[in-house]
C-alpha cells in the first residue's frame, strides 16, 4: 500500500524552503547581503574599538585579539540567529503546518540551514580580516574551525527540534530565549579571553557548549592550541546525546503542533 504521508524529496524541500528565506532576506541583491553582515560587523567594530582603547586585553598577552573577537562574534551570531530562527520556524510558516502536510522537521531544519547559509557568507568577512591582519592559519587550524562550525550547527538543530514545538504552545519563549542568549554572550569568552578569569571558573564557563566552541575555536585558529582529545571526545558525545534527545522530544510533540498553533 502506498503511503500518503511520504515525501521523496525531503532534501529538496528543506533546501528550497531555506533558499526562499535566504532570497527574501537579501532581496536578491548584493546590497541585501551587506545589510545582513552589517550587524555582526558593526558589533565587531564597536567592541574592537572599546577593547582596544579602553580595556586592552593585548596588554595581557593576547596577540590576535581582533581576529579572535571577530571569529567569536560571528560564531555567536550564528548560534543566536540560528536558535532564534529555529525557535520561530513553525510559527513563521504556520500555513505549512495547518493547511498542508509536510514533515514538520523539514520546516525547522530549513530555518536553521538558512542561518548556516548566512554564517557561511560571513566566513568571507572573517577571511577578509585574516588577510587584512596578514594572519595565515594552517590546515589543521582551519579544519578544527570547520569541525566546531559543524558542532555549532548540530547544537542549533537540537535546540530547535525541542524549542520550536514548545514555542507553538508557549509564546513567551522567544523573549525568554532572547534574555538567555544575552546572558550566554557575556558568559562566553567572546570579548574577554578565558585566561582573564580565575582558573577555578574555567570548567564552569566551558560547561556552556557555545562557550566551549568559541574558546577552542579561538585557541585553535589563532594560537594553534587545541583542547585535549578526551575533552573534545566528551564534548562531541554530549552534543550527539543532546541531538538524539531532541529527536525523541520532537517525535513526542510533533503530533499536536497543528492543533496548538
Amino acid at each position: 500500500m502506498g503511503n500518503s504521508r511520504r515525501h521523496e524529496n525531503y532534501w529538496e524541500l528543506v533546501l528550497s524552503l531555506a533558499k526562499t528565506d535566504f532570497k527574501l532576506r537579501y532581496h536578491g541583491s548584493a546590497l541585501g547581503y551587506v545589510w545582513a553582515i552589517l550587524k555582526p560587523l558593526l558589533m565587531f567594530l564597536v567592541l574592537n574599538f572599546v577593547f582596544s582603547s579602553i580595556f586592552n586585553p593585548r596588554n595581557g598577552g593576547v596577540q590576535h585579539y581582533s581576529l579572535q573577537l571577530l571569529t567569536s562574534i560571528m560564531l555567536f551570531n550564528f548560534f543566536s540567529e540560528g536558535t532564534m530562527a529555529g525557535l520561530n520556524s513553525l510559527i513563521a510558516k504556520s500555513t505549512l503546518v495547518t493547511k498542508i502536510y509536510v514533515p514538520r522537521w523539514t520546516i525547522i531544519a530549513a530555518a536553521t540551514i538558512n542561518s548556516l547559509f548566512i554564517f557561511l557568507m560571513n566566513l568571507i568577512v572573517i577571511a577578509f580580516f585574516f588577510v587584512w591582519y596578514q594572519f595565515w592559519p594552517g590546515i589543521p587550524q582551519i579544519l578544527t574551525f570547520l569541525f566546531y562550525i559543524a558542532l555549532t550547527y548540530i547544537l542549533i538543530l537540537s535546540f530547535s527540534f525541542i524549542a520550536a514545538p514548545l514555542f507553538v504552545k508557549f509564546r513567551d519563549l522567544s523573549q525568554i530565549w532572547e534574555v538567555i542568549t544575552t546572558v550566554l554572550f557575556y558568559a562566553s569568552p567572546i570579548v574577554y579571553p578565558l585566561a582573564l578569569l580565575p582558573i577555578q571558573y574555567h570548567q564552569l564557563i566551558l560547561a556552556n557548549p557555545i562557550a566551549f566552541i568559541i574558546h577552542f575555536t579561538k585557541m585553535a585558529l589563532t594560537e594553534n592550541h587545541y583542547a585535549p582529545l578526551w575533552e573534545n571526545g566528551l564534548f562531541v558525545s554530549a552534543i550527539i546525546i543532546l541531538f538524539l534527545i531532541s529527536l525523541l522530544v520532537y517525535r513526542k510533540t510533533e503530533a499536536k503542533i497543528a492543533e496548538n498553533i
Partner: protein
Amino acid sequence: MEKDIAISVDNLSKTFTIPHEKISTLRGVFVSVFSEKSYERFKALDSVTFKVKKGEFFGIIGRNGSGKSTLLKILAGIYTADGGKVAINGRVSPFLELGIGFNPELSGRDNIYLNAIVLGLTKKQVDKKFDDIVAFSELGRFIDQKVKNYSSGMSVRLAFSVAIHANRDILLMDEVLAVGDTNFQSKCFEEFDKYRKQEKTVILVTHDISIVKRYCDRAMLLRNGKIEIIGDPDKTVDQYTRQNIADEKETT
C-alpha cells in the same frame, strides 16, 4: 485493503479540548499553577466510517462545525486522530486553502517551484511540468510578477494549477474553487472528469449543492461529527436542504 479503494476510514473520532482560558505563555503556566483549569470537550468527529473508491468524485457537505474540515485535515495528515483508523491508498495532494506555501514577495515562477516541491514533486519534475502549469493557470505574462500583485482569482488559478499538476492519486479540496471565475471553475471540473478514467480520486468539501448534484458520484452529509447520510448525491443534497429548513424553523 481492497485494491479499488482509495480511502478507508474506520470508526474515526477526533475530540478537541478547548480550555476556557487558554494559557499560551510560560508566565501563564506559573501564574495559574494553583488555579482550577476548566475546559470544554468538542467532539468534531464521532465514529465516522466510510470508504471512497478509486476514481470517485466524492462530495462532503454539512453545516459549519459539522466536522468536514477536521475530517479533511485528518485525511491530509495535518491532524492526528484520537481513535479509529484511516488507510489511504495513494498519494494525497491537499488543497485546503488558497496558495499554501505561497510567498507574496516571490514571483509566480518561484512560487510554482516552492509550492510544487511542498506538494512533494522534485525540482526536475517541476521543470518538466512548468509550462503546462503556467498554461493551465492562464497567467502567461504575469508569471514573473510578484504574487502580492495578483488578484485573488489569479492566485487561486496558480495554486490550483500547481495542485492539479502535482499529479497525485487523491485530491482533497476545501471550498477553494469558489474564488475562481466560472470559466476557470468549469475548466477544473472538466479536468476532474478525466480523473475518473485515470482512477484518481477527488474529495470535495463544499456548500454549493449544485456542484454536488452535477459532478459528484457520491456524497456524504455530516452533522455534529456524525454521518447523517451517505450515497446518492441527489438524496444527500435533499436531506441537507430539509435539514437546513428544519434548523431554520427551530431557531425562529
